[in-house]
């Protein structure tokens, strides 16, 4: 029975992954048209923007791109299609790797849109999340596990922290909106606010994971250190924390991986807007990759469909990478 | 005393005690027969005593082996240790007493070769007390009775008294008729062996005293306790 369920699950997973791969893979490639070809205007309304640059090839518009890659006529006129076919014969149209997908930030035009803005926004946000959640989370866990007196108050705090880990993330978005934006007046959809909000959301998870890791440290180790005349802080930082570190790091990475994929709280704090320039600092308006995906998914153009799927692939890859690193670290310290 | 948590241990110790009792009783019987054989000039009885001595030697070996086994396997401590050590000593002392009984029986066989001679009164009285002493010492061992052990210890005086009495009677007979010297000497040897039995029984009592009190026996302690008796 279990095997059947497993197979079903794998089937669904395979199906979904296959669909996303199939849809998103073309996003990594774009159609280009040689600049020397005539009637460039007809095919690429933005051609004039590129003619000044010394380029032999320019990006085709998304309609051309869709036609050339998938034979979807879309909004193309029949004579435009004829031009494309003639270009094909003349070798003045080609498909290249779409570096723009990774290097450009968002755009109204699907063929020019890229994930860089979202990715950079995600990285900056994640950095703030880390800075917020790591020291406070670990410090809290250390205090609760090693130093706090065991009374009703501490128990109450612990119970609440455990419960916070299960609170719907959108409520943290609400908290962030009210506290960081309205009360503290921080700039709206900035990486700073996003990071702080996600940091608050990650705190309970990190505290719980750290405490779990700390509790695996055998008490005899602490006693041995105490017996030698080590102070409680020395016991903590020379012995307990190093031993618990793999578990702590794993917990932190998993919390960050979760934060990377969070959308709802960031929507609450306003990271939903269209942002064409990538953020240059923590206070600049920014967006994150999942929100970028969300935005693209609402656009009607065919080009954005494949962009959405392509971005999903990138996000999944990064998440898989983070999880893989967590597993590696755990394995390394277990040996 | 409370039982051992390990029952087999208790059984080992009881077994040791039982062997000592058995060996003691056999030995008392040997003494009785040996003395009777002299008084009745009974060769056959005397030979029986000599033949049965090996039984007692076997028992001593058995007791030694069991004691060593208990020491090795149980690592007895405190009272149990003192009991096992006492058992080893006592088995040795009882075996010597049995040897004295054999010596007495041998006198009977030698006397048989000699011409008839007058009866000398006192041997049967002399032998009564050592027998009581052995019986008392064995009981004291089994019951951890230090007072009984000291009683037994003091009884040896009486043995010495009777022995000296018998000795002077023997000398009288020897002086009266030189022909009596031969047989009287044998009677003297028999009496001496009985006196030695008394000494050994006193040793057994001392071993019991050490077993119960944990202290080595000192005459001053016995004499101090004489008032109790």
């Amino acid at each position, binding site marked *: 029975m279990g095997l059947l369920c497993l197979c079903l699950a794998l089937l669904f997973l395979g199906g979904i992954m296959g669909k996303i791969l199939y849809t998103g893979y073309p996003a990594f490639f774009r159609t280009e048209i040689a600049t020397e070809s005539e009637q460039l205007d007809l095919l690429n309304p933005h051609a004039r923007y590129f003619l000044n640059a010394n380029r032999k090839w320019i990006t085709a518009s998304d309609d051309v791109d869709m036609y050339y890659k998938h034979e979807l006529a879309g909004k193309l006129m029949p004579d435009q299609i004829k031009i494309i076919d003639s270009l094909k014969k003349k070798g003045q149209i080609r498909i290249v790797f779409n570096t723009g997908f990774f290097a450009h930030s968002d755009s109204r035009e699907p063929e020019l849109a890229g994930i860089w803005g979202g990715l950079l926004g995600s990285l900056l946000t994640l950095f703030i999340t880390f800075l917020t959640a790591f020291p406070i989370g670990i410090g809290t866990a250390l205090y609760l596990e090693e130093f706090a*007196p*065991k009374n009703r108050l501490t128990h109450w705090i612990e119970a609440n922290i455990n419960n916070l880990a299960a609170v719907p993330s959108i409520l943290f978005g609400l908290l962030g909106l009210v506290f960081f934006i309205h009360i503290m007046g921080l700039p709206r959809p900035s990486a700073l606010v996003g990071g702080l909000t996600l940091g608050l959301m990650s705190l309970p998870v990190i505290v719980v994971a750290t405490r779990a890791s700390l509790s695996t440290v*055998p008490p*005899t*180790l*602490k*006693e*041995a*250190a*105490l*017996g*030698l*005349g*080590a*102070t409680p802080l*020395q016991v903590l930082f*020379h*012995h307990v924390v190093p*031993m618990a570190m793999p578990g702590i790091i794993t917990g932190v990475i998993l919390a960050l991986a979760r934060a990377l994929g969070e959308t709802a709280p960031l929507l609450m704090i306003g990271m939903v807007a269209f942002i064409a320039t990538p953020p240059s600092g923590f206070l600049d308006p920014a967006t994150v990759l999942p929100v970028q995906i969300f935005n693209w998914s609402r656009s009607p153009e065919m080009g954005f469909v494949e962009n959405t799927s392509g971005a999903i692939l990138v996000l999944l890859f990064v998440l898989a990478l983070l999880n893989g690193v967590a597993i590696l670290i755990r394995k390394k310290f277990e040996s | *005393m*409370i*039982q*051992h*948590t*390990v029952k087999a*241990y208790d059984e080992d110790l009881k077994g040791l005690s039982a062997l000592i009792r058995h060996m003691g009783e056999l030995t008392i019987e040997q003494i009785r027969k040996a003395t009777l054989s002299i008084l009745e000039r009974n060769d056959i009885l005397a030979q029986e005593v000599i033949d049965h001595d090996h039984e007692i030697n076997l028992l001593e070996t058995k007791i030694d082996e069991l004691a060593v086994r208990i020491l090795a396997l149980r*690592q*007895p*401590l*405190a*009272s*149990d*240790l*003192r009991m096992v050590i006492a058992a080893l000593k006592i088995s040795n002392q009882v075996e010597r007493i049995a040897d004295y009984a054999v010596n007495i029986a041998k006198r009977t066989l030698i006397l048989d070769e000699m011409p008839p001679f007058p009866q000398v009164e006192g041997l049967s009285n002399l032998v009564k007390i050592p027998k009581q002493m052995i019986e008392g010492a064995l009981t004291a061992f089994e019951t951890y009775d230090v007072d009984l052990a000291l009683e037994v210890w003091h009884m040896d005086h009486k043995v010495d008294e009777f022995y000296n009495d018998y000795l002077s009677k023997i000398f009288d007979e020897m002086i009266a008729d030189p022909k009596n010297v031969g047989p009287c000497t044998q009677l003297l040897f028999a009496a001496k062996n009985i006196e030695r039995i008394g000494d050994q029984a006193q040793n057994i009592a001392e071993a019991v005293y050490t077993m119960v009190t*944990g202290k080595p026996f000192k005459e001053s302690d016995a004499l101090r306790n004489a008032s109790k008796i």
Partner: protein
Amino acid sequence: MPLKIDVKNLNLFYGDKQALFNVSLGFPEFQTTALMGPSGCGKSSLLRCLNRLNDIIPNTHIQGNVLLDNKDIYASSVDVVELRTHVGMVFQKPNPFPRSIYENVAYGPRIHNLFKDKTELDKIVEKNLEWAGLWTEVKDRLHQPATRLSGGQQQRLCIARAIAVNPEVILMDEPTSALDPIATAKIEELIDELREKFTIVIVTHNLQQAARVSQQTAFFHSGYLVEAGETGRLFTMPQDERTQGYITGRYG
């Protein structure tokens, strides 16, 4: 023989539960004292009072005095951390730090700054490993993880680690109960040698071990000190019925 540690009328409480009742016991210097008794009798609790390791359990408090060199270790002016450099401890299950052999022995001297330079530290490590009878076995692999040693070697390492801070007293909580007979014998031999320089208190379940290694033995029952005395005398002629019952295996 002067008393290195003198416990006077010690009562120990874990919260509301009393674990030791009016215990008075002296520990002569340069001798080994064995604490024995059935489980839960308080012998380990007493041991942990001697280096105040009981302090880490919440809600423990004591009444009475524990004097080390005639100074009360429970006085408010006493620095517990410093106390533990005078009274070291070895535990039941060998618990070396997950570091190299060298670093295990060096840890104590490091945190207490007991050396000037690396050469001196090397000497300290070597000296203490030799004391523990481990030097020849490990001198070529000092930087290997301590966890690769056998159980007996690990325990000797723990002893080396404990004596590396130059304590005066070594407390041992059933140090050989997790070891095989040969490793046990080596440690008992070591205890005998350590007596030259240290005062030793050992808690043991093993009657024969207490008989073998100690000069003074104390018998505990349900938190009370029942009897204490010279080891030979206690094991051949115990005064108290309860001691007699315990050591001869008659529990009633």
